[in-house]
């Protein structure tokens, strides 16, 4: 190839390359990448709150009492798994008669996010270690919507919304229907 032709080809190549690369560089320069969650997002975190009322005498053997939210209905012991869990509170103290909770205060062991949940319950375990083995737990209270105690109430938390009034009664003398897989 003759030198002037070669230089011409190279110049053309570089010209096209620069034309190609400039928009990319411009796009990169204008794109900040990952951004922090906005303050509004932080302050309007989806969540729920309510009151748990305990009736009857606490068993002295209880080691854990937790508020637990499941995404899908508990149709078998296999449904009682970590990926079906939408929220687990920090432990509720033993021997209380009433316990007010708010996910804004207690983000929980597993925090809640916006979405629809099929089963909200208070469960107790007598095991020393925290497990998610269905056999280790007894459900002592279930959330019922609109006083309909025939089936567990659904909890729907819209994005950036806070749902209140999720009240649960735990009557140790009259336990609710247990989900499958228990003892």
């Amino acid at each position, binding site marked *: 190839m003759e030198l002037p032709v070669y230089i011409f080809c*190279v110049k053309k*190549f570089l010209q096209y390359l620069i034309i190609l690369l400039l928009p990319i560089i411009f796009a990169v320069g204008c*794109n900040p*990448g*990952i951004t922090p969650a906005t303050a509004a997002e932080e302050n309007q975190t989806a969540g729920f709150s309510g009151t748990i009322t305990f009736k009857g005498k606490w068993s002295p053997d209880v080691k854990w009492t937790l508020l637990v939210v499941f995404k899908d209905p508990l149709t078998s012991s296999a449904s*009682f798994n970590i*990926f*079906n869990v939408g929220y687990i509170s920090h432990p509720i103290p033993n021997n209380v008669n009433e316990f007010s909770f708010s996910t804004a205060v207690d983000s929980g062991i597993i*925090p809640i996010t916006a979405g629809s949940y099929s089963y909200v319950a208070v469960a107790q375990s007598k095991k020393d270690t925290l497990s998610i083995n269905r056999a280790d737990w007894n459900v002592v209270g279930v959330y019922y919507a609109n006083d309909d105690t025939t089936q567990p109430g659904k909890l729907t938390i819209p994005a950036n919304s806070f749902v209140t009034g999720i009240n649960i009664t735990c009557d140790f003398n009259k336990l609710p229907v247990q989900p499958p897989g228990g003892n």
Partner: protein
Amino acid sequence: MIFSANKTGLLKKIIFILMFAVAPLLSQNFHINGIVTDSTNNPLPGVNVKIIGTKLGTATGVDGKFFIGNLKSSIYSLEFSSIGYKTKIISNLVLKDRPLTLNVELQQQAIESQQIVVTASKYAQRLADLPVSASIIHANLFEKKDINDLKDAMRYVPGVNMIDDQISIRGSSGYSRGAGTRVLLEIDGIPYYTGDTGEIIWEIIPTPEIERVEVIKGASSSLYGSSAIGGVVNVITKGIGNKPVTYIKTSIGAYDKPSYSIWNWSNELRTFTGLTAAHSQRFGNLGLSVSLTRLSNMSYKQSGYYTRFIGFIKGVYDFSSTSSLTFLANSMNQHDGTFLYWKDSRDALIPPAADEGESVTSGRYMFGAIYKYVLSNNFFLNIRGSYYRNDWADQTSAQNKSLSNLYRLEVQTNANLFNNFILVSGIEATADNVTSNIFSNQTAKGFGIYSQADYKFQFPLSTTFGIRYDYSKLSNQIGVSALSPKTGLNYRLTNRLSLRSSLGTGFRAPTLSEAYTSTSTSGITIRPNPNLKPESNWTFEVGANYQLTNNINLDAALFDNEYYDFIEPTVDPTDGFVHFENVTRARIQGFEFNSNYSFFENHLRLSLNYTYLWARDLQLHQALKYRPRHMALASVDYSIGNFDFGADFRYSSKVEEMDFELVTLGVVKDGRKRVDIQVLDLRADYNLKHFGIPAKIFFNVNNVFNYNYVELIANIAPIRNYSLSMEFVF
């Protein structure tokens, strides 16, 4: 003629006088010395200088200088050769009366295909003759980009993506927090993975000692056994020249402010510094090279800091022209903070409160010996032995600690049985013991035997067939074994076009850490699974290399990798505990296109690379974790006078999947935040030899646009930083 007695006596005297006068001239030795530089006048170390037709020769030192002594007065022809440069022959040099001093300039070979690699088949081959894809990182990348950690250089290899410190070649790996690797790292052919976690410790490699790094893409278990299921990275260290050379490098840098004021957790300037001192010298048949490096980094992340000392000794003793013993000693002592993931996206540069103040102290030591013996022109023996000791302890609530000792021995023979037929065979044995509270006290052993036959037909067609048998056993578990065959073809269709194809299998035995880890840290509980099976794959590749002009080289490859019994960290849904399990049947397909250009007498160099990956979990019908679909690299270098300027751009598309179980479990907040990777780096350097100073100054700006991205879940990659470094060679 008849002489009288007197005349005979006079003649004797004349001859006697002449003999005394001429004798010094006849016996006088001369030398040839000089300096070898590249087209931009930079000295080239490690250039082979050979006197054609003799066994005499040497290699240039770090300063590019060479010296060949004890030469008789004669006419010589010299050959100068170096990987990455066109071989130059200077003929008919008349050495008479006085020594010769040469200034030799080598032209960089824009044609990557002409370069030599030793890793693909355990002997030297041209890149274009390989049946598999390979890439080379040259030493000048570390120099000009002020790279002190090999893993940072791997980000500029086409088809490779780094997930923090874990390497993935063509999508071979996700992220397993240091447990195991699917890519084998070697230093001068000695495998370099830890005895307990089976991971690569990139930081231990002394980058100033690197001559080049060869990267073989695709399953290489037929030669290298377990761990090479996804490829091999072989670090070739610099040779030791005849002339003593001292090398000093110092660097200082700082991170810019984060993009968002709420991320600004420190009022201090976050700096990093480095200092390397190295010396190499020959003492008769013994060549010695010693280097010591200290690196310190305050980090842009809280708890991301480290202080590191790297020691390296290389000794080469030539018993004769046919046998030598190389001794390697490499150490790293480090204290570093622990940053597993951010607190949340508003506190992206600080760890969760529970992890604050956590750190790890480690001491890692490798001793290796390589004995080379050329029995004849057709038979070559290579014995490699090594000991790798790893000792670390973390300062966390779990107080994890581990001490592992890994011993390894390999005997390799290369036989040129008849014309164009090379047989590479070897046996390898490993023994490993671990004392640890996180893996318990464990032992492991392994054995491998391999053979590979390469035959070059006249066409020219090169064929390869290899097979390796491996046996490995972890503690009291039942031993497992695997056969890994491989076949390959390379056909040089024309002088400019070569085609390649390979079909191979790979295998990886579970590491001690994958089988026995039992700990709880940062909200994650890991439990052991000693019943892990080895994972395996088969890989197919077809590729072409085309030398369009003397200055433009194009390379393309299509590949398909099928993985079975993939070992992956998994969350048990019944208890939320993490354990390693053979879970996945995976398929990784894609193509890679690489191109290199050189213009204006090599003053302008350009490289453009693109890789497409389709990496799917065939059981879950979703993308494999941490595999981007598109990866691209572009780099440009321009040399003018004593200045060099360059820019590098990296792109990876947003990964579809990460460890989102950690988000579901509430361990990581805002962990789904991820973006494309788009990073631009700029650099410039200046050679001070113009002023008679044997030094160069380098200036780098990395992540120019301060683009915020993650390679690993909830871990912001390095923000914009500046570095100034200077190196002296004398």
